[in-house]
C-alpha cells in the first residue's frame, strides 16, 4: 500500500471514529443541554441548540420535589455493595477454576454465562414473590442480593481470565524460593491480581449503577436508587422534558465522572484480558 492511500485511509478512519463517537455521545449531550432549558424551549420545534436562556430552574425544582441525596446514597450502597459481595464470592470460584480446573470447569463457566441470556422478565414473577415472602421488597439488601446474582457470572468470568493470565511458573518459582501458601498468596498472587480485581470492581459498579429493570421493579420509595429517581420524572400526567433531563444528568454525572477517570482500567476490563 502506498503512503498516500494509507494516509487517506487513516483520515477516513479518524472521521468515521469521530462520527460514531459523536453519535453515541449525542443523546447524553442533548440531555445535558435540555436540562438547562425551560420546558417550553425543551419541546420547541425546530429544536434549539445553544441559543437559549440557560437556566438552573429545573435543577432547583428537582431538588425541591425529590430527595436526590437519598436516591444517590441508595445507588452507592446497592452498586458498591453488590459488587463487593460478588467479588468476595467470585474470587475463590475463579481462583479454583483458573488454577485447579476440573473436567467440567469449562462447562460450568459456559453455563454461568448462559444465565445472562435469560430475559429477566421471565423470572420477574417468581423473584418478586420470593422477595415479598422474605420481606426483601423495597430493601437495599434485597437489591444488593439480586444485582450481585445477575452480575456474578460476569465477575467470575472476568476474574477467571485475569487469573488465567498469571503464569503458573511464577507461582512455582515462589514455591521453589521457599514461600508457603500464605506467602505465595500474600506476596506474589495478590499483587499480580490486584489490577484485574480493580477493573472488575469498577466495571461492575458501573453495571450495577445503571441497572434499571430490577431496581425499578423491586423498589418503591425506601430503597429506590437513582434509576427510580429518573423514572419518577416521566410521569403519566405529561412529560416534563427539561426536568427529566435535569434528573437524568444528576443521576448519570457521578458514574460518568468515575468512568472518565478510570478509562484505562475499564478498557482493559472490557476486553476481558484479551489484550495484554
Amino acid at each position, binding site marked *: 500500500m502506498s503512503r498516500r492511500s494509507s494516509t487517506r485511509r487513516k483520515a477516513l478512519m479518524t472521521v468515521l471514529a469521530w462520527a460514531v463517537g459523536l453519535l453515541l455521545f449525542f443523546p447524553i449531550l442533548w440531555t445535558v443541554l435540555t436540562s438547562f432549558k425551560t420546558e417550553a424551549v425543551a419541546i420547541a420545534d425546530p429544536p434549539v441548540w445553544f441559543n437559549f436562556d440557560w437556566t438552573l430552574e429545573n435543577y432547583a425544582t428537582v431538588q425541591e420535589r425529590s430527595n436526590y441525596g437519598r436516591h444517590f446514597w441508595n445507588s452507592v450502597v446497592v452498586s458498591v455493595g453488590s459488587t463487593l459481595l460478588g467479588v468476595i464470592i467470585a474470587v475463590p470460584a475463579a481462583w479454583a477454576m483458573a488454577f485447579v480446573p476440573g473436567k467440567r470447569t469449562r462447562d460450568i463457566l459456559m453455563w454461568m454465562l448462559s444465565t445472562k441470556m435469560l430475559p429477566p422478565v421471565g423470572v420477574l414473577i417468581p423473584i418478586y414473590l420470593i422477595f415479598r415472602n422474605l420481606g426483601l421488597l423495597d430493601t437495599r439488601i434485597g437489591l444488593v442480593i439480586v444485582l450481585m446474582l445477575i452480575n456474578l457470572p460476569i465477575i467470575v468470568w472476568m476474574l477467571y481470565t485475569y487469573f488465567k493470565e498469571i*503464569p503458573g*511458573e*511464577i507461582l*512455582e*518459582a*515462589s*514455591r*521453589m*524460593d*521457599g*514461600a*508457603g501458601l500464605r*506467602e505465595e498468596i500474600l*506476596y*506474589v498472587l495478590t*499483587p*499480580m491480581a490486584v489490577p484485574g480485581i480493580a477493573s472488575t470492581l469498577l466495571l461492575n459498579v458501573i453495571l450495577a449503577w445503571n441497572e434499571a429493570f430490577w431496581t425499578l421493579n423491586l423498589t418503591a420509595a425506601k430503597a429506590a436508587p437513582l434509576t427510580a429517581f429518573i423514572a419518577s420524572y416521566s410521569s403519566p400526567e405529561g412529560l416534563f422534558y427539561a426536568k427529566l433531563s435535569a434528573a437524568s444528568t444528576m443521576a448519570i454525572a457521578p458514574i460518568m465522572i468515575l468512568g472518565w477517570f478510570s478509562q484505562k482500567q475499564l478498557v482493559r476490563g472490557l476486553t476481558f484480558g484479551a489484550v495484554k
Partner: protein
Amino acid sequence: MGSITLSKITKTFGPKEVIPPLDLQINEGEFVVFVGPSGCGKSTLLRLIAGLEDVTSGQISINGEEVTLAPPAKRGLAMVFQSYALYPHMSVKKNIAFPLKMAKKSQSEIDEKVTNAAKVLNLTEYLDHRPGQLSGGQRQRVAIGRAIVREPAAFLFDEPLSNLDAALRVNMRAEISDLHRQLETTMIYVTHDQVEAMTMADKIVVLQAGRIEQVGAPLELYETPRNKFVAGFIGSPRMNFIEGHEAAKHDAHTIGIRPEHLTISTESGAWQGKVGLAEHLGSDTFLRVDAGPLGELTVRAIGDVKVKYGDTVFLSPDPSKIHRFDAGGLALR
C-alpha cells in the same frame, strides 16, 4: 552438600506413563544434563526432583534424607525457569532478595548477599529496575541471582537458554559453566540441545520416552554410545547409519559412522557417491552425498574442499570409528 538419589521413581498422568521406573544417582558437585527430544520426560523428571510434581511411586532423597513427600520449599533446591518466572511487580533487588526474605534472614544479611550476587552477575546498576525493563539476558541473570543467594543444595535449570538469541546463548552457557566452577554446587540442567549438553556437562543423562538410554561423560557418549538412539542424538551433524550388505560385512545389522570420520577424495575411496548439498563454511565443509545403495551420507571435512553439486566423490570411513548395532539397535562391542 548436594547429592540426589532417585530410586524406582515413576510418574503417570492419568493413564499415561510418562516416567517408567527410573533410578539415578547424582553426586555432590556434579553438573548433570538431562537431554532428549521434546516430550522425552526430561522436564517432568526435573519437576519431580523439585517437588513441583508428585511422584506416582518411588523415592527421592537429597543428601541421604528422604524428601519424596516434602513440598518444594522444604527441599533446599533452587530453580531457574525457561520463562525466567521473575516477579513482575518487584524490583530486581526484591526479586533476588525474595528467597532470603522467605527464609527470614536479617535485613543486613539480605542486603549483603543481594549486593554480592548483583556484582557477580553484573546487575548492580539494574537493582532498582523492574524485570519488564530488562533484556532477555539480564532477566536470565536475575533468575540465576535469585537462585544463587539461597546457597541451595542443588540448582535446577529448565531449558534456561532457549528464549535467548544464539550469540547470547553461547555467552550465558559460558557464564553458567563459570558459575558452576566457582560455586562447586550440584547443578541439574535440562535441555533438548545436545551442544549445550556436550559443552557443559560432567555427566549427561540421555532420555527417551521417560527411559534413561545412557548415562555418561560427554565424550563417553560420543565415543561409545550404548545404542542407535544415543549414537544418533549425540553429535552434530548426526551419525550416518547404513544397513544391509555393507553392514553385514561388519557382522552387524546397522553400522554407524560420524560425518567427521569419513574422508573425502575425488579420486578413490571405499564408497562412491554424488555431491548433493555442499555447505562451505570456510573452517569446515558439510556435504550431503548420495551414495547410491548406501543412502544419503553426511560428511564433515576440515577446511574448504573444492567440490560442488553433482561432482562424483569417494568416501572412506575410518575403520576404527565404525559403530556396530544389532537388529534391536543395541551397540555391539
